[in-house]
């Protein structure tokens, strides 16, 4: 029976797609009589099926070892493109994480989007989204991974642009697509190059090829840089990080997934590519550097945000930066642990955020306060999620961060500092958000704030419990080391920075009415961080402006030079004809002379070589 589930595991990504297709009659408006709810139920059902099927496969390969499924998709001359799925314990674990969170997020969306007219379209997109992610974590070939990354780009575009009538959403969707697309095109260059050089694009063949084929350092560097560009875009790392905070304009249930598992998918591809990137020390260095910049920069920028969702999205970038550091220093185990723990904690925080937004119809931090007594479940969920994010109590991320510190402390001290800084700053920021939202006196928007209805409360409470159980689950999967392996100095440093961060957040003076400081130097720093180091403006002035100028130049050149030349030739011949017609006198002698001259010249030309 177990083998049956494994051999049908290609269905796992297909379930989401089936849900998306099944919801089409409602999302295109063919079926209106029933309302959009059946589409939602169908998608939830399909996700549930995927979750259960995934669990069964997980159980059977836990006992029997990993397997691979290979389908030849396209074959021509020397090109073979396979759709390969690796059914291994880690991949299945990631799949369970994705389908589980997707299930919870979809139930959550029943409440969150209750009054939205396009509920069916949302569920279609979520099904598509989930299918792409599930396929991505199972994928055993770079070709499939690339294709699914592009699918993710497309579905992100459509999900961010879900409320496409709002101007901010339109620009957010555009930026999300274009920044990811830049990464994807660079990745495609790498994929094409690898395919041409190595022949096969299956990860196993690539790993074998990497070991035998001597590549010149220049080529391997270019290859490595191209390969990391895709994950950089997908994981919202500097310099392609802009889209994630803008994407927060989209509906919250999609943000839950985007901040937890979508970024995980990008990092997952990076981990699969790591044995190829290792060829180039430069690429590894770039990976670490980008990760460090994003980790510290993102944590700092998060503190200055006044938008509830955006501040948390920057912390997502920061944690993914830590993952990049882990991959760049060749500790994929750390990266995977961080991804798992971060995803679970961040998803819970975003569920709490969704509850707050539904109740208060606002996501502006300065307009909130005093929600702790009115929304106890949400308060608890946010608290658990926040504690799971930072290394204070031995919840989720504590273990990931601890492991990273443990390994990094042997090699490079400055990366340890980065890890500790991110931990402290995140603790500070989460405490700041907690105080602004839940503590203090209620404001206009938080005065009448009932707890959310059950479709939102149930997944939120479920995920809170899961968060509390994460250490137990990790112990069960033997991801938590025994106590004697604990690196005590590093662990105490981690806890110390967490506590310092929380304490700093607790005593930080917070003024709600004046979010911008009146003290000028402080205000400058605040603005610098609030506008994300003015990255968007820099891009507008440089890359966007360059493309715009180039396109206008070529348009101008086209209209006035290329087309102008053509029109000038046309005009000249017309004018020539018009002009010559007045030279006609009507005398036959003149005609004869013209003809004779013409024939004479022609004859001279023809016989030129004979002279």
């Amino acid at each position, binding site marked *: 029976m177990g083998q049956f589930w494994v051999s049908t595991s290609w269905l796992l990504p297909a379930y989401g797609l089936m849900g998306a297709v099944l919801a089409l009659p409602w999302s295109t*408006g063919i079926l209106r009589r029933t309302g959009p709810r059946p589409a939602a139920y169908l998608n939830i059902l399909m996700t549930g099926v995927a979750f259960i099927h995934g669990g069964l496969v997980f159980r059977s390969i836990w006992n029997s070892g*990993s*397997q*691979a*499924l290979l389908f*030849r998709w*396209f*074959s*021509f*001359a*020397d*090109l073979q493109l396979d759709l390969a799925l*690796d059914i*291994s*314990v*880690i991949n299945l674990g990631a799949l369970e994480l994705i389908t589980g969170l997707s299930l919870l997020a979809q139930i959550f969306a029943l409440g969150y989007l209750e009054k939205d*007219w396009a509920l069916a379209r949302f569920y279609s997109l979520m099904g598509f989204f989930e299918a792409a992610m599930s396929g991505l974590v199972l994928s055993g070939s770079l070709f499939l991974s*690339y294709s699914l990354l*592009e*699918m993710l780009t*497309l579905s992100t575009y459509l999900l961010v642009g879900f409320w*496409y*009538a709002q101007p901010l959403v*339109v620009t957010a969707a555009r930026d999300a*697509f*274009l920044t990811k*697309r*830049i990464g994807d095109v660079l990745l*495609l260059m790498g994929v*094409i190059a690898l*395919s*041409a*050089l190595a*022949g*096969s694009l299956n990860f*196993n*063949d690539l*790993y074998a090829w990497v070991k035998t084929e001597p590549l010149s350092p220049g080529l391997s560097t270019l290859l490595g840089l191209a390969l990391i560009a895709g994950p950089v875009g997908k994981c919202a790392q500097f310099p392609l990080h802009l889209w994630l905070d803008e994407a927060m304009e989209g509906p919250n249930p999609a943000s839950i997934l985007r901040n937890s598992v979508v970024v995980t998918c990008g990092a997952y591809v990076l*981990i*699969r590519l*790591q*044995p190829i990137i290792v060829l180039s020390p430069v690429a590894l260095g770039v990976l670490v550097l980008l990760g460090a910049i994003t980790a510290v920069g993102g944590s700092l920028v998060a503190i200055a945000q006044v938008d509830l969702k955006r501040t948390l999205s920057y912390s997502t970038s920061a944690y993914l930066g830590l993952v990049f550091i882990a991959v760049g220093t*060749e*500790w*994929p*185990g750390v990266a*995977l642990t961080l991804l798992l723990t971060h995803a679970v904690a961040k998803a819970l925080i975003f569920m709490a955020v969704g509850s707050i937004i539904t109740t208060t119809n606002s996501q502006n931090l300065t307009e909130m306060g005093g929600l702790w007594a009115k929304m106890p479940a949400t308060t608890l969920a946010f608290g658990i999620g926040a504690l799971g994010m930072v290394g204070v109590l031995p919840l989720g991320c504590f273990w990931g961060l601890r492991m990273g510190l443990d390994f990094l402390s042997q090699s490079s001290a400055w990366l340890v500092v980065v890890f500790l800084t991110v931990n402290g700053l995140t603790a500070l920021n989460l405490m700041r958000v907690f105080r602004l939202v839940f503590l203090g006196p209620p404001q206009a928007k938080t005065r009448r704030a009932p707890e959310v209805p059950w479709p939102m409360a149930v997944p939120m409470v479920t995920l809170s419990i899961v968060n509390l159980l994460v250490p137990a689950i990790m112990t069960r*999967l*033997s*991801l938590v*080391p025994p106590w004697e*392996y604990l690196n005590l100095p590093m662990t105490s440093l981690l806890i110390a920075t967490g506590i310092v961060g929380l304490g700093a957040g607790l005593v930080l003076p917070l003024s709600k009415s004046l979010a911008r400081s009146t003290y000028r130097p402080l205000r400058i720093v605040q603005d610098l961080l609030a506008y994300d180091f003015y990255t968007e403006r820099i891009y507008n002035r440089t890359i966007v402006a360059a*493309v*715009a100028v180039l*396109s*206008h130049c*070529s348009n101008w050149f*086209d209209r006035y030079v*290329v087309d102008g030349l*053509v029109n000038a030739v046309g005009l000249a011949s017309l004018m020539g004809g018009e002009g010559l017609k007045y030279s006609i006198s009507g005398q036959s002698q003149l005609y004869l002379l013209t003809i004779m001259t013409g024939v004479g010249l022609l004859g001279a030309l023809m016989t030129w070589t004979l002279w």
Partner: protein
Amino acid sequence: MLSTLILIPILGALVVSFWPSQLTSAMAKAISGLSLGLTWVGVVWLATHFDLTTAGFQFEELLPWVESLGLSYRLGLDGLSLPLLAVNSLLGLVAVYISDPHLHRPRLYYSLILIINGAVAGAFLAANLLLFFIFYELELIPLYLLIAIWGGPRRGYAATKFLIYTALSGVLILGAFLGLVWLSGNTSFDYDTGLAAALPLMQQGILLVALLIGFGIKVPLFPFHTWLPDAHVEASTPISVLLAGVLLKLGTYGLVRFGLGLFPQAWMALAPWMAGWAVVSVLYGSLAAIAQVDMKKMVAYSSIGHMGYVLLAASASTPLSIVGTVFQMVSHGLISALLFLLVGVVYHTTGTRDLTVLRGLLNPERGLPLVGSLMILGVMASAGIPGMVGFISEFLVFRGSFLIFPVQTLLCMVGSGLTAVYFLLLVNRAFFGRLAIAPAGPTPQLDVDLPAVAWRDRGPALALAGLIVAFGLQPNWMARWSEHTTLALHAPYQGFVQAGALRFLSPARTLAADSTSLPPTDLEVRPWGPAAALVSPPLPAPLLDPISQP
């Protein structure tokens, strides 16, 4: 059998034009639809009887015609022409289906469309150089009239420009053909890959340049492209569909069939220049498209960019890139036809194509939600998102050309990124936002209520979208027809391709990379397990053990 594909449309044209009694527009449409439907059946019949393992011409027909000139009526079908023939029949049918049912002078209109269809089929089937030229010219005047009579306000200018450009291209092609046959001392114009073998390289080069410019005008390639945006903007929607989907393919087909196929030595010598030309064309077309505000013009410039890929692939001339040209021609035919179709619907319902005026057409109740959704699908296909045919054709082109022209290929991929930029601008401006038709002025029109698009008008767009997705998911359905033909076309270029690939690989591997036979499929299943990735650095035992050895 092949002649029927040419004769049925011509016969249909005769019937439409000489129908004895009063002929209503609907009847003319029905007759032309019927005759194009018959040719479609003919193409399907040919496809089912097509021998996949033969490289050369099949179903050959030979009638001596003007023997003293070397002109014979010789037709043949191979893996290069079959997919294009199918696209021609399909898009002809689409064009007739979407034609305005109340247009004036229906007899002339439909007979012209039928003549174009027959002539293009003839050009794709011709296995004699002069015969190809005759069919190539035959399609010219009908298209001129179709633009000049049923076109937009500047139709006279656009049609004349088209006529002059294409006539010039015809002259150059004819000159090249005559030069090729006369200089090589042949008496027959029958297609033969060895025609130019005896010529010195210099003469081959001159002839090839004439041919390149001739077909480059038709494709069109920078700087011979300015007729295309004008023609597209002025032509009515069905004519745009035909023009972009079928007629441009005559140019690329000519490049591959007569350039790549007839002048191997000169082609190899000029290939780096052509690849550079392709890059210029791709980047120029894409950049110019970004600046357009007319939706139709934007799609037209995107055609210039996307047809540049065909030149890149043809100049690399590996088996993969040659099949990539076929893929790119077909996929561009389908995708651009879909885009022009949808732009036509938008223009029909809103009365404008101006991107500075249109807003929020995706509105579910008062806008054009399905048209908008299909538009998103179309532009994503054009931008090369996997799952649609645009991706696999671009992948084949890039993958096939990479080893030969790495820098040029990478630059063309930048063009593929730019495609996303301008089409995203199109979708974001016209389809996202609040529904409005806002001409420049103080009072935008906000209470727009666009008429619903009937299902019969959505039909062709849905069919094209279905084909785009189907071929994207299952490209083997397209590749199987062309496999042996492309391998035969590639045969003279093996040494060239190897020399190109040498820069990257050790010689032993190059042979494998260029082997024309399919290597044994390596279906051996190896358990990967990210454990393998995890193992590479040393990790503490407790983390790994249960995973790698459960």
